[in-house]
């Protein structure tokens, strides 16, 4: 039942917002419909088309509320027309009345909702919160917990975003084709941010984090389906799936981070990997490469390798080169150095790293120091490695990362310096 709810919440919200223009009303009616289902389904059994059932109940609820309100005649009529179109009966029909499709024949308006929630005129935190609330049904309290802010703060953020949508007239629509190239990256970025918030081990409740990842994957799935012409949407979905496949293997029983090299690859989720591969192939078929597709290709290389040693590092290094040319990002350059070190040895990686350090763009970034430490350790330069690990541990924010670096530090200290 939870699965049905999660799937249908966004669809119902999107349709009701489209019909009424009222975000709060839509949410209340969706909530009421789910509450009714919780009462009735255990008693009467789950209807054949649960989505249509929920949509009908929610829509009827909206009609009732609007009738009780004052000046919404036109909107009520629109809803009533929609009801007739949908069920072939009057809007007083029982929820279980015959409908011809699982979605109750209501067009899928979720794309409008996604683009509106991810509008660039909203603050990025608001985009993330609104997307999670209206599209995935995560409660305000849960979103607040996931992002480590007080619930009242999160509630205010959501209200403010909804006010801005209404007052500044942010349109509820999918941008016209000409504007899509400008708007799609922003939407993908919000979904990736949600995923990373769940995936990064920075802080917070493990269950909530895993749930965030799953919701981000589900949203990326919806987006990839609704934007079939957009290979980057499929690329992002593939990337998330490859990452999620490794989720169980990347933290050990005591909550410590396990590097890709040391992960138990039998614990990787093969279903996610296979699905990721399929979406990536689909994406590549469009022959319009982009950041997410290339990142997914890199993650796919890792996923395909039976061991760290057997990984196609030269290919990964080439992919990072492509990505670096595309983005100009120093973090990508850092990753390229890691791949080059695996392909051509730590000395080659260190040379690239030194060029990067001279640029200064990553000063204070713990992974820069941690990477240098790793190269030095593999070159047997243990003294230098130890001081780099110390530097990295100071810069690293939290639990698992810091514990990992300290463990490595102890390891190189215990070795002879080799001089």
């Amino acid at each position, binding site marked *: 039942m939870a699965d049905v709810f999660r799937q249908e919440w966004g669809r119902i919200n999107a349709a009701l917002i489209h019909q009424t223009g009222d975000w709060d009303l839509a949410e209340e009616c969706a909530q009421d419909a789910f509450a009714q289902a919780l009462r009735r389904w255990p008693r009467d059994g789950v209807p054949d088309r649960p989505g249509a059932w929920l949509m009908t109940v929610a829509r009827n609820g909206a009609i009732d509320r609007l009738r009780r309100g004052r000046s919404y005649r036109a909107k009520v009529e629109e809803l009533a027309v929609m009801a007739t179109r949908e069920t072939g009966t009057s809007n007083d029909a029982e929820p279980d009345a015959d409908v011809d499709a699982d979605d109750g024949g209501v067009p899928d308006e979720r794309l409008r909702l996604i683009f509106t929630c991810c509008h660039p*005129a*909203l603050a990025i935190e608001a985009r993330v919160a609104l997307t999670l609330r209206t599209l995935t049904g995560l409660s305000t309290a849960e979103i607040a917990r996931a992002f480590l802010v007080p619930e009242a703060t999160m509630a205010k953020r959501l209200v*403010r975003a909804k006010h801005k949508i209404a007052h500044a007239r942010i349109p509820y629509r999918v941008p016209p084709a000409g504007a899509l190239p400008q708007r799609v990256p922003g939407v993908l970025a919000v979904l990736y941010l949600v995923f990373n918030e769940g995936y990064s081990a920075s802080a917070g409740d493990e269950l909530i984090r895993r749930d965030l990842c799953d919701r981000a994957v589900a949203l990326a799935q919806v987006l990839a389906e609704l934007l079939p012409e957009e290979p980057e949407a499929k690329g992002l979905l593939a990337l998330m799936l490859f990452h999620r496949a490794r989720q169980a293997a990347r933290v050990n029983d005591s909550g410590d981070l396990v590097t890709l090299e040391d992960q138990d690859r039998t614990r990787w989720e093969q279903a996610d990997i296979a699905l990721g591969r399929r979406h990536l192939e689909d994406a590549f078929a469009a022959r319009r490469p982009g950041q997410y597709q290339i990142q997914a290709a890199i993650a796919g290389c890792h996923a395909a390798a039976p061991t760290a040693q057997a990984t196609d590092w030269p290919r990964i290094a080439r992919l990072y080169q492509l990505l670096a040319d595309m983005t100009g990002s120093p973090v990508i350059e850092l990753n390229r150095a890691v791949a080059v070190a695996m392909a051509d040895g730590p000395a080659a990686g260190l040379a690239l790293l030194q060029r990067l350090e001279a640029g200064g763009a990553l000063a204070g970034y713990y992974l820069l120091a941690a990477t240098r430490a790793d190269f030095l350790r593999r070159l047997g330069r243990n003294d230098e490695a130890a001081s780099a690990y110390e530097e990295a541990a100071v810069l690293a924010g939290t639990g698992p990362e810091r514990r990992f670096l300290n463990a490595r530090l102890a390891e190189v200290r215990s070795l002879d310096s080799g001089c």
Partner: protein
Amino acid sequence: MQYMLIHAGAPDLDEAWNDEAWAALGAWLDEAIGSGVSIESSPLRMDADATTVKVRDGQLIVTDGPYAETKEQVAGYDVIECASAEEAVRWARGHPHAWMGSVEVRALVGGGSVAHQPGPAAGKTRYMMLVCTDPAVEPGELARVEPVEPWVAEMSSRGIRLFGSELEPSGSARTVRGKDPGAIVTDGPFAETKEQIAGFDVLECADLDEAIEVAAKHPMARAGLVEVRPFRSLEED
């Protein structure tokens, strides 16, 4: 000679409005409209509903919020017709906003040619577009800024730009604070930010996307910042 009165106030301004302030605003408008001084006037939505637009290296950058973080925010405006700056300051002194917050007085470049525009048209929203300088942009860039006339011509013919004007530099602004007879007039704008309002245009658009598109095409989007903020109609409140 036309002058813009920029109303500024703290974010909790709304709660501070009391019967006395409302009555004073009503009386001020009656007198200003009756005597032909008031040409245009509207309250604006607060900072939270503002959107700032700029174009850098050909990339459109849209951000939530006003052109600058200030203690007081732009809450409304008037365009008035006066014989002199002193007369404009006198009108500002009588405006309740001077004691609710502050009123900045700025002359329109070239005397101004704003005429009253009833509306908005059905289904349209009015936006105040504040054209601002950006201290992060090097002065050379500002000197190379394209002429605004083609933009004005295009947006006026599309029925989007209703009126607007460049303003005399912020250095020439005068700001009124407090309640007469105790109101204090200081030289300079209401906020000493590095970003300063250089001009304004009133737009009538179908939605925020259209307002953003129009703002992004303004030459100052490349050489400065352009904020769009919806008008506020008193009936909705």
